[in-house]
């Protein structure tokens, strides 16, 4: 009887295990079947959109827009991910959206990286709960890759035509939202003379001062930083930039100027990393937050000005697709684009807005001088991928892990 007990309880546990595992597998197959369903539905919705934009160009987009607003309100909620309030003034953007349309915004993980956002879509395929993101804001290279994996659905906003062609997918799966250039954020209490260009950073007066804002083996911002330094060192030759960048940082490290800590606002203020290489909008927003304690200078280097574009997309499994589309409309409206500009991010329709005189002068004044942006280089996805290959694989060997 007792060994029967043992047998019974073990087989109970085993049976339970198999059932749950089996159900898990079945669910995965059902989800696989479901995934093909939203994609065609989304394409059907994408078809009427171009027609709508043509109407929008000539007449105020009242009816399709109103239908979208009503559908979104019926859904009641938008789930976003990876949108820190201090990044590009997303705080005000979200508040503005909430106030204008009365939807609630469920904000997931503001600290997520682009990879996290993709993972969140994948993990939440069958989930319509509040953990599933509706919209994502990811680095440029993630646009084509997530389209290839079937994770996003196409949508063309009303202002589609004023988005530069190089920054959007022709079929409307992903579209650039804002860009910024790499700049030096300098703690001017600690650093007396601000460096003006990449070559200056190698000078002995900047010993133990320079840091990247991420890990160059994994963070887009850091990799672009290495690329920009290389572009400056290679005199603008994109093909040589990655290798030149690695050599530059190896020299920086040998000179004792490079600090391997990941630069943040706190380490800048404390003095451990008084010079940080990061996106200009982050540096400028940080300058405002620190409010003079310490004093911060933001300098765009004279050569090697690299611009990074981020792209928006709607998840193919979005639980609230209409709210997502309404969000996109808001982001790409003049109001939304200027909110980004207030956060020091150059919105993708910047040139269009400036041409139509829609940008207030005070806003332009708060940005670094426009001359600094004229030489900005926009690396293509292929160039970025090539540079990424080189930099991530060779960082350890070339720059030298000085930490053994």
């Amino acid at each position: 009887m007792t060994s029967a007990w043992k047998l019974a309880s073990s087989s109970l546990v085993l049976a339970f295990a198999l059932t749950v595992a089996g159900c898990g597998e079945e669910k995965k197959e059902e989800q696989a079947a479901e995934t093909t369903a939203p994609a065609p539905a989304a394409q059907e919705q994408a078809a009427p959109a171009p027609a709508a934009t043509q109407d929008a160009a000539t007449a105020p987009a009242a009816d399709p827009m109103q239908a979208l607003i009503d559908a979104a309100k019926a859904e009641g909620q938008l789930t976003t991910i990876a949108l820190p309030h201090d990044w590009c003034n997303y705080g005000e953007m979200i508040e503005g959206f909430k106030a204008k349309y009365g939807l609630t915004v469920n904000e997931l993980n503001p600290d997520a990286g682009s990879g996290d956002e993709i993972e969140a879509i994948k993990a939440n395929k069958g989930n319509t709960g509040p953990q599933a993101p509706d919209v994502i804001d990811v680095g440029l290279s993630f646009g084509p890759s997530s389209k290839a994996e079937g994770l996003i659905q196409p949508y063309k906003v009303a202002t589609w035509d004023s988005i530069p062609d190089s920054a959007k997918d022709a079929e409307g799966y992903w579209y650039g939202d804002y860009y910024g250039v790499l700049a030096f954020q300098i703690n001017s209490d600690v650093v007396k003379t601000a460096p003006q260009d990449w070559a200056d950073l190698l000078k002995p007066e900047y010993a133990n001062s320079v840091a990247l804002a991420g890990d160059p083996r994994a963070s887009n911002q850091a990799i672009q930083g290495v690329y920009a330094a290389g572009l400056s060192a290679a005199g603008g030759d994109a093909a040589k930039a990655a290798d030149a960048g690695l050599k530059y940082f190896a020299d920086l490290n040998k000179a004792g100027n490079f600090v391997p800590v990941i630069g943040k606002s706190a380490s800048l203020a404390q003095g451990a990393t008084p010079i940080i290489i990061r996106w200009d909008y982050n540096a400028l927003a940080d300058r405002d937050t620190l409010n003079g304690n310490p004093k911060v200078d933001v300098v765009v280097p004279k050569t090697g000005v690299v611009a990074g574009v981020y792209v928006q997309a709607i998840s193919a499994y979005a639980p609230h697709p209409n709210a997502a589309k309404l969000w996109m409309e808001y982001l790409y409206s003049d109001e939304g684009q200027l909110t980004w500009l207030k956060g020091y991010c150059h919105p993708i329709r910047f040139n269009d807005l400036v041409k139509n005189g829609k940008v207030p002068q005070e806003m332009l004044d708060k940005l670094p001088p426009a001359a600094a942006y004229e030489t900005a280089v926009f690396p293509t996805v292929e160039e970025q991928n090539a540079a990424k290959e080189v930099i991530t694989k060779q960082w350890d060997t070339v720059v030298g892990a000085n930490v053994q």
Partner: protein
Amino acid sequence: MNQARIGAWIATILGALYFVVPLIGTFEFSLRMRRGEYSFDAYRVVFGDPQFQATFAYSTLQALATIVVGVLLVVPTAYWIQLRLPKLRPVVEFITLMPLVIPAIVIVFGYIRLYNSSSILPMTASARATDLLLTFSYVTLALPYMYRAVDTGLRAIDVRTLTEAAENLGAGWPTILFKVILPNVRSAILSGAFLTFAVVIGEFTMASLLNRPAFGPYLQNIGANRAYEPSALAIIAFVVTWACMGLINVFGRGKQIKAAP
């Protein structure tokens, strides 16, 4: 004897220095928010944030729930393993070491896939059910510490004799477990409880991906873009967590004193 006591004092003082000085460094930096003078501005900002109190309260409740579930799960298991099933010990120990090595992010993505709104156990569908899922995930995370603490405590008492004595006096196994064994491993359980509490309060990945308003995501949010507030927050979190543990300690020890005849 005196030599031993001097040695003990030296160890304690060196230990205290090692642990307290970095805290002093953090504290000093947090006072620097106002330019040129020391002030409590960073603390004022943190305390004025209603999110701070809400998320800390939520995480405290989760921590207490985790401790209760953890104790109920681990103590009987460690007891039975020690007493009757020593061959299973390696298996259980390996299982309890896993949460340390498997990244939390893999575990929580597994939960979302297994228990999302379209599975047989739709735990992510409602807020309360997700809270429960989060408690279970915290229990998983705290398992290494809780099990090791209780196992060490059980080794230090003679489980076999206690059990046999209790059985001879006519006790059934619930009585044995809760009235005989549990009080004797009280200090081990307290250690496990402290560790669990600290783990839950600071935990970020699971709370963030399951989208619950816990303290960890709040800490991360503040720490991302501010200079002085994160240090202030670290000190505040340290002090408040320490106070909570003191309460657990008093509560735990108090009962013991009353129980002794």
